[in-house]
């Protein structure tokens, strides 16, 4: 935690310190001793560590803060404490198994990681237009439900860090409502591996549409509660308005996307700009603001949740219309073969599917075997796919060598990119605003570190 870290601040152009101000570096210990020592030495500028184990750093983020009194003079983020080697691991797994790995990157919004990886794979396969409509509707439904969940986590943990625990409990109950639907359809609450190259893993249960329609007012109620709790609260406004300001020039220089860019005034949303999975056919708005501070970002996230609920309602209507349609691409050399169903002991192999492959069709058995053990081959080349994560632009660069395993899959996580703005957001502000700034960036360290 001393000045041996030579990395300069992320935003070039910050005037370097004249070097004359004396500094006192803290290496841990009892805070009262440290404060006493600092007063005795007459130094005012302290360099200390915030994290990686910290209640409010949204994961294992380490921030090296140089503080003069209560003002942050320099803040540097240290990441890598959750680096999992997911990208390298994907190179040793088939394209479908890669989904189960990439889904654990941004674990708050797992469906988006899966979706972008599958979109990249499908681009390489050339089957983007062959994805059945019901599969696209299910993908959009899952993505929007996960978007609501992710924004609720952002708002909830943001409130919790300010000391308002009720905000967190309210937000997480809303999230649980979405989980009931997600669990009914995919089998898992998080890290579902539901969106697979070619479509989605399985079709919905019969009562899915009723469940979705019953869930929407419950989530809307929680969103209303959050808005009522926070948005006019003078303490909330005092702590968030004008804090973590990042204007348009800084956003463009730092490549910021997502709610941070939209709070600076640019209505850039990839769902509208480069629609994927049928987003161009849905009716929704992209909330934008010009205040560019933490308060406007919370407002934007809440409004995006309402817009997502609109999309979810449209998805439910379409699911009803498309009942019985396929959910996987028609090409049997790519489509994931297995079907699951709920039995007396939980979710397992669908007996109809077993009967089909064992008794009725040799080709189906062969396809099942080869697709599950070997996987499908993807023609050589590279592709880039990008979608709108709750946090910003999530991109994937996939390279194939013609085989059944990716040669390279690199994810451009918006949290990784947006976290570079931390120094710009916090320097010159107070230590308490660092917490607010991190909450307003809304990054997930799993995506940042991968």
């Amino acid at each position: 935690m001393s000045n041996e870290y030579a990395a300069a601040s992320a935003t070039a152009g910050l005037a370097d310190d004249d070097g004359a101000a004396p500094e006192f570096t803290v290496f841990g210990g009892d805070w009262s001793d440290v404060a006493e020592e600092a007063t005795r030495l007459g130094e005012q500028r302290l360099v200390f560590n915030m994290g990686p184990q910290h209640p409010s750093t949204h994961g294992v983020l380490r921030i090296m803060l140089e503080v003069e009194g209560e003002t942050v003079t320099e803040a540097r983020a240290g990441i890598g404490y959750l680096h999992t080697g997911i990208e390298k691991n994907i190179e040793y797994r088939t394209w479908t198994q890669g989904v189960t790995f990439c889904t654990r990157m941004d674990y708050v919004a797992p469906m988006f990681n899966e979706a972008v990886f599958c979109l990249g794979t499908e681009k390489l396969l050339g089957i983007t237009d062959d994805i059945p409509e019901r599969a696209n509707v299910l993908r959009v439904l899952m993505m929007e439900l996960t978007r609501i969940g992710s924004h609720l986590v952002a708002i909830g943990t943001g409130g919790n860090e300010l000391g308002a625990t009720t905000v967190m409990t309210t937000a997480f109950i809303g999230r649980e409502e979405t989980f009931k639907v997600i669990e009914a359809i995919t089998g898992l609450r998080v890290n579902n591996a539901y969106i697979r190259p070619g479509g989605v893993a399985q079709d919905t249960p019969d009562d899915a549409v009723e469940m979705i329609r019953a869930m929407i007012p419950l989530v809307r109620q929680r969103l209303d509660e959050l808005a009522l709790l926070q948005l006019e609260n003078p303490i909330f406004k005092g702590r968030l308005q004008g804090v973590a300001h990042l204007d348009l020039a800084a956003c463009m220089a730092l490549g910021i996307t997502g709610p941070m860019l939209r709070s600076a005034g640019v209505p850039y949303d990839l769902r509208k700009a480069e629609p994927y999975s049928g987003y161009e056919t849905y009716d929704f708005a992209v909330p934008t603001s010009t205040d560019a501070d933490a308060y406007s970002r919370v407002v934007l996230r809440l409004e995006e949740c309402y817009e997502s609920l609109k999309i979810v309602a449209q998805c439910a209507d379409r699911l009803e219309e498309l009942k019985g349609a396929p959910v996987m691409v028609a090409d049997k050399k790519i489509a994931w073969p297995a079907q699951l169903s709920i039995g007396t002991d939980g979710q397992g192999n669908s007996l109809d599917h077993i009967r089909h492959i064992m008794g009725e069709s040799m080709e189906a058995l062969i396809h099942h075997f080869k697709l599950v053990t070997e996987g499908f081959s993807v023609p050589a080349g590279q592709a880039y796919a990008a979608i709108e994560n709750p946090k910003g632009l999530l991109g994937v660069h996939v390279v194939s060598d013609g085989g059944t395993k990716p040669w390279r899959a690199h994810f451009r996580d918006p949290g990784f990119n947006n976290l570079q703005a931390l120094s710009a957001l916090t320097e010159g502000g107070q230590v308490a605003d660092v917490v607010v700034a991190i909450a307003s960036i809304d990054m997930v360290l799993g995506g940042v570190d991968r």
Partner: protein
Amino acid sequence: MSDAIDNRPAADADLAPVTPGGRTLINVRQGMFGARGDTTGYDRITRFVYEPAPAQRPYGGWFDEVVDVLEELLGDKADAAIESVVIDRGELTLHVAREHLLEVCTHLRDDQDLRFEFCLGVSGVHYPAHVGRELHAVYPMQSITHNRRLRVEVSVPEEDPHIPSVTSVYPANNWHERETWDFFGIRFDGHPGLARIEMPDDWVGHPQRKDYPLGGIPIEYKGAQVPSPDQRRQYR
């Protein structure tokens, strides 16, 4: 391997040897169906997998306009700077020589017809088969104004893995270049602070290179051992 079928593509129009570095050899794939030393002969097949061939004019869509504008801005350096143009799966890839990378990026960002405001990071790729140009750095560029995306790819040899840093043009690439240095060992000259970002500071090696092992351990269960994923028998 002396009687292996030589699948190397013949030196005809398909390979179009117009570029100094040549078309990227992604991988040399030995064997099919995971066969190893059996009587089928499938273990001896050797396939040289190249990236798609450079595109011929007209490219189609907005690609022509963009490449024309870029070549005009580069002037007589255009041939040296843009090594090849590949169009595949609806995406434009410009292979750019590293000496001219900064200039190309500046034009891409600043010219009103190009206006690629965002650089979506650096993706490193390691092609050990492509001797002399093993390490590739791929820069996806996004234009909000014109709503389009292209890719700039720079290739460098492992012995001299230096690429000029584009942080002076796209400050957002700061951490992305650090990550690519960390995982591939590509040194970005001019980067304000090129340090490891994901691995611990004293880590040795560049983990995402192909010659770096996955590093897993064998899993033991009731007396049996399942080897680490990179050691197992597997299809490729």
